[in-house]
Structure formats: structure tokens, C-alpha cells
């Protein structure tokens, strides 16, 4: 039965592809899509004692994690309901117990069960302050992902982005789902372009306190260090995921070029020896290659180059403005922003620039894409709702979810995986 349906879907896809083939920018991605998410039952926790949740009840956090993950589709149910779970093909479900302790803490026992047999597949217990419930539930959810997929989930990862606070762009961080937001910078000039240091030790960002763009490193305790002060104007930071080394743009005499520098020693050398301007460097997942944008062809286009600066090759040819490319953590795709008729939209393509897929369209400007560390999701900024906010979508452009609200939020950068604390 199942197989026949899958065949049908596959046949429908095969039929659909040729009709799209004539239009280069539209295609159907058969990576993850709605067909391939795994349904998972979500049942409210049994509560002992009246518990006042600081944000949401645990099962709502789990359902949100499931739907955002790009791996699952939540099947909510008020109690265990085998008929419903079977109908929706949810082979597993999550639930738990919550107990309010006399010291004000909350004990969460979280379970993953097989729906049919009611076998316990995973059980985790957390005793946390009310404010840390979200963190505990995210942590459990990532264990569920690992149990069922053998891969690390992103529920415990974070985003850094730029938020307009009292009219000033400030760098903030939050959980990947937009909750638990924290302001990191306080300076009253402009703070922008945050990226995560290796091991999420802190951020690197751009600040204008000297009336020009300069790079700074900042810890989450607020300790700031100016970087590469031998240059007048520095921006576009990109952290090497393996060594922590930094690629960044330096502007001197009207020319903008990419340099490679060591944050600890402050030494930096020119990375590329090209006549053109270069911005927006991005490392490949194993730091063997680098993407960047150059105007050498007369318009900004994406290029790739070896980590030693050799073998420059052009990736994008379509359109007149392709910028801010970033390599997927799985290594197989590139996401970038393209401008057409003054509107920004997000596209992905294969490493050789072919197989272009437009992920956003007819919804305002969509820009600054950043991959989740598992490569399943893309966070980006869009003004589709009137002002700029951060959204998350699956890598095929489906399931777009807004995760911020209020005054303008832009320029998200996803953290690396956090090392699990034992």
C-alpha cells in the first residue's frame, strides 16, 4: 500500500520535472520535502501539581521543534491515541511527566515511545529552573533526533542576528527558534554582520564607533577586542570551522580585497591576488575551499577558490547580482542571494552552478541566508510582513516560519553545534 503510494508520488514528480525544465530558476527539490518528513505523535506531559510555564508547556515546545526541524511533522493529540497515530503514520510519539519541586525547580521526565508496542525508546530526566525548561526540552528533542536518525539535531543551536534597539543596530543572540533572546552589543553606533567563533566561544562582528567599519571579537560576557587594527576598514567576517581562522574584507584606496587572519596574533595576509573587488567569503564545510563574491565580470557574481587562493572559478552566471554565497554543511549545495528588478531572493545551486532552485518568490525581499549546522534548514531575513524579520525554512524552500517579531531583525547567522555537556 505504502509502496504504491510512493511510486505514484515518484511518477508524479517525474511527470512534473520536464514541464519545469524550460524555466531555469524553478525546479522541484526531491531532498527533504513534505513527502519525506516523519510524522511523530506529541502528547501533553502529565503534570503533578499546578505548573506555571514561563513560555510554553513542554509538548508545545516539542511540537514546534518537530515542525521546524525539517525532519518531522508533529501529530498532536491530547492523549495517547493509537488510531490517530496509525492513521497519520506516526510510528513514535513523545510525552513525559512534569513535577514541581519544593525548591521551585521543575523535574521533567521525557519519553520517546514506539506507538504500536509502547516500547520505551528513549527516556531522559532533567531538573531545571522554570526559565531553563525550554533548554531542557530542546536538549531532549535533539536526543530524539539522534535516536531516530543517528544525526545531530539543531534544537539546541542558536542564532546571532542584528536587531534595531532604540533605533540602533545591535547584535543579539537567541535560541534557534527565536526564544530566549539576549543583547550582546551595547555600543550606540552601528553593530552588524555577526558570525560565530569556532566552538561558539563568542562572536565576531562589525562596529562603526570609529566612523568606519571595523571588526571586533566579543565574548558572551561582553568582553570586546578590536581585530586587525592595522587596516582602516574591515568587514565581511567568515570563521574557518576547523581552525577558527578568519577571512574578511579589507578596504583600502577604494579597493576591497579578502584577507586571511589569525584572531589571536592579529597577523593577516592577502588571500587573493585579483584586480577585482572581493567581499562575502565563506568556507566550505571542511575548509578546503572558499566561496566569495567578485565584481570582476562587471557585476557581483559568486566564485569559488581553493583554500590556498588558487584555481578561481565562477559559479553563478544567471542574472546581474548574485551575492553572499554560503556552502551547505553537507557540502553539496550553495545558497546565495540574487537581486532581480530590485528585489532580493534566495536561491540554491549545485557546486558547479547548475541545478538552480529559487527558494523564495513573491514575498518582499528575502536575503542573508544561513544554513543550520545539520544542513536541513535555512534561516534568512525577509520584509514580507512589512518590516524585516527572521524566518526559517526547509532547504527546499518549504515550511517558512517566522521566528522573530517587533522592531527590525536582520542578518541571521546560525551557530555551530554546541558540544553536549555530559
Amino acid at each position, binding site marked *: 500500500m505504502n509502496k504504491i503510494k510512493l511510486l505514484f508520488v515518484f511518477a508524479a514528480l517525474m511527470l512534473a520535472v520536464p514541464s519545469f525544465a524550460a524555466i531555469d530558476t524553478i525546479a522541484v527539490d526531491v531532498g527533504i520535502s513534505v513527502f519525506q518528513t516523519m510524522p511523530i505523535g506529541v502528547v501533553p506531559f502529565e503534570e503533578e501539581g499546578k505548573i506555571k510555564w514561563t513560555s510554553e508547556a513542554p509538548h508545545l515546545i516539542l511540537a514546534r521543534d518537530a515542525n521546524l526541524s525539517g525532519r518531522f511533522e508533529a501529530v498532536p493529540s491530547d492523549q495517547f491515541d493509537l488510531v490517530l497515530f496509525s492513521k497519520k503514520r506516526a510510528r513514535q510519539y513523545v510525552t513525559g511527566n512534569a513535577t514541581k519541586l519544593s525548591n521551585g525547580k521543575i523535574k521533567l521526565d521525557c519519553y520517546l515511545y514506539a506507538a504500536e508496542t509502547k516500547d520505551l525508546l528513549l527516556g531522559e530526566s532533567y531538573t531545571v529552573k522554570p526559565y531553563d525548561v525550554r533548554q531542557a526540552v530542546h536538549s531532549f528533542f535533539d536526543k530524539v533526533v539522534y535516536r531516530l536518525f543517528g544525526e545531530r539535531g539543531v534544537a539546541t543551536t542558536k542564532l546571532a542576528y542584528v536587531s534595531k534597539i532604540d533605533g540602533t543596530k545591535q547584535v543579539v543572540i537567541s535560541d534557534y527558534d527565536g526564544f530566549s533572546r539576549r543583547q550582546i552589543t551595547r555600543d550606540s553606533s552601528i553593530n552588524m*554582520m555577526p558570525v560565530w567563533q569556532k566552538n561558539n566561544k563568542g562572536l565576531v562582528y562589525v562596529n562603526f564607533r570609529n566612523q568606519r567599519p571595523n571588526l571586533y571579537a566579543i565574548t558572551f560576557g561582553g568582553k570586546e577586542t578590536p581585530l586587525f587594527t592595522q587596516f582602516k576598514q574591515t568587514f565581511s567576517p567568515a570563521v574557518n570551522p576547523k581552525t577558527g581562522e578568519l577571512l574578511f*574584507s579589507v578596504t583600502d584606496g*577604494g579597493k*576591497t580585497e579578502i584577507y586571511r587572519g589569525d584572531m589571536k596574533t592579529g597577523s593577516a595576509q592577502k588571500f587573493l591576488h585579483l584586480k577585482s*573587488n572581493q*567581499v562575502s567569503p565563506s568556507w566550505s564545510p571542511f575548509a578546503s575551499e572558499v566561496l566569495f563574491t567578485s565584481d570582476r565580470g562587471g*557585476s557581483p557574481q559568486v566564485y569559488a577558490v581553493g583554500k590556498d587562493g588558487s584555481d578561481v572559478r565562477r559559479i553563478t552566471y544567471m542574472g546581474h547580482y548574485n551575492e*553572499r554565497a554560503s556552502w551547505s554543511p553537507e557540502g553539496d549545495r550553495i545558497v546565495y542571494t540574487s537581486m532581480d528588478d530590485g528585489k532580493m531572493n534566495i536561491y540554491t545551486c549545485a557546486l558547479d552552478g547548475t541545478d538552480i532552485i529559487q527558494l523564495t518568490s513573491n514575498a518582499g525581499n528575502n536575503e542573508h541566508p544561513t544554513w543550520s549546522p545539520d544542513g536541513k534548514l535555512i534561516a534568512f531575513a525577509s520584509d514580507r510582513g512589512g518590516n524585516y524579520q527572521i524566518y526559517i525554512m526547509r532547504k527546499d524552500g518549504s515550511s517558512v516560519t517566522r521566528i522573530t517579531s517587533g522592531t527590525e531583525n536582520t542578518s541571521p547567522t546560525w551557530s555551530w553545534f554546541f558540544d553536549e555537556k555530559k
Partner: protein
Amino acid sequence: MSKIIKFAMMGFALAFFAWGCSKEKPETDPNPKTAEAPADSLLNLDALIADTLSADSLARLEAERLEAERARLEEMINRLMTEDVYFDYDRSDLTENAKRLLAQVAEILVNETRFIVTVEGHTDARGTEDYNISLGARRSTVVRDFLVAYGVDAGRLMAVSYGKERPKVQGSDEAAYSKNRRAHFRVSIANNE
């Protein structure tokens, strides 16, 4: 301010020197401190008052002259800071209008050697933050190079880029965009004293 005081003191000194000459008393040391000696004599009080008054008016005149000079500089700085150089979309070459304006700016800067100028390059809201910083940098550098070629000392000119971060006009239409694609002058006065 300190200049005014200095000048006023000089005025006093000159006045007393002139007074000394008119009385045909040989005065060897025309220093301000000698002014204290004649002041002891009540007989000379009237003359002293008259002379002080004239020194006062001299100082006032000088203050007015300085004030006028300050106003002139201020006006010139204001003009420099309101007259932006505009660019075409995604371009950093100077239009004919831009060149005419820059020639006037250069004329001012060649004459006013105390002006120190930061040229800010700005872009409209379209495009990425990163690319727009490089575009703004090209714009400010083109302007700086023009002024240097005209004869302005390069040491007094700095070119920086704000990319799309500081729009002059809010909005997402060509009217706003065209006002925001600009090079802006920020002027300060070198302190020579």
C-alpha cells in the same frame, strides 16, 4: 576665545605705550606690567579710562571680526556638509553634475587649509550589506581622488564607507534611492594652536 583675550591685552599694552609717548616720558619697556605703574597716579585716571575704552572697542571690533570669520567658516562647513555628491545606481564614476560640485568643493578646500574632511560613501538600500560597503568605498575614494587631483592635500582627506547603513532619506522608491546614493562630507577644523 583665548585669542580675543590675547588681543585685548595687546590692546592695553599699545594704549599705554601710546600714552607714555604722548607725555614725552621716555618709556624703555613697553610691557603690559609697566601699565601698573601709571595706574598708581590718580591724576592720570581720566586718560587711563579713555585709553581703556578705546582698547575695549578695539577688542570688540576684533571679536566681531573673529565672529564674522567663524560664521563664514561655519556657513562654508554647513554648505560642504549639505552638498552631497550623487551617483547612478551601482556606479562609482562621477557624473558631470558631480564634477561641477566637486570643483567648487575643491576650491574651498584649497583655500581653507585648516579643513579636514572625511568623505563618506553611501549606497541605496538595494543589495547586500557587504557589497554595498565595497560600493560605498569606491564612491568615497573616487571623490577623494578628484579632490587630490585638484590640489587638495591628500593628508587632509579620508575616505570611508557606510554602505547602506545610514540612508539620508527613508523609503524604497527611486526618489529615496537616488538621494541615498551619495558621497557626504564631514568637516572638522584642524587646531593649529
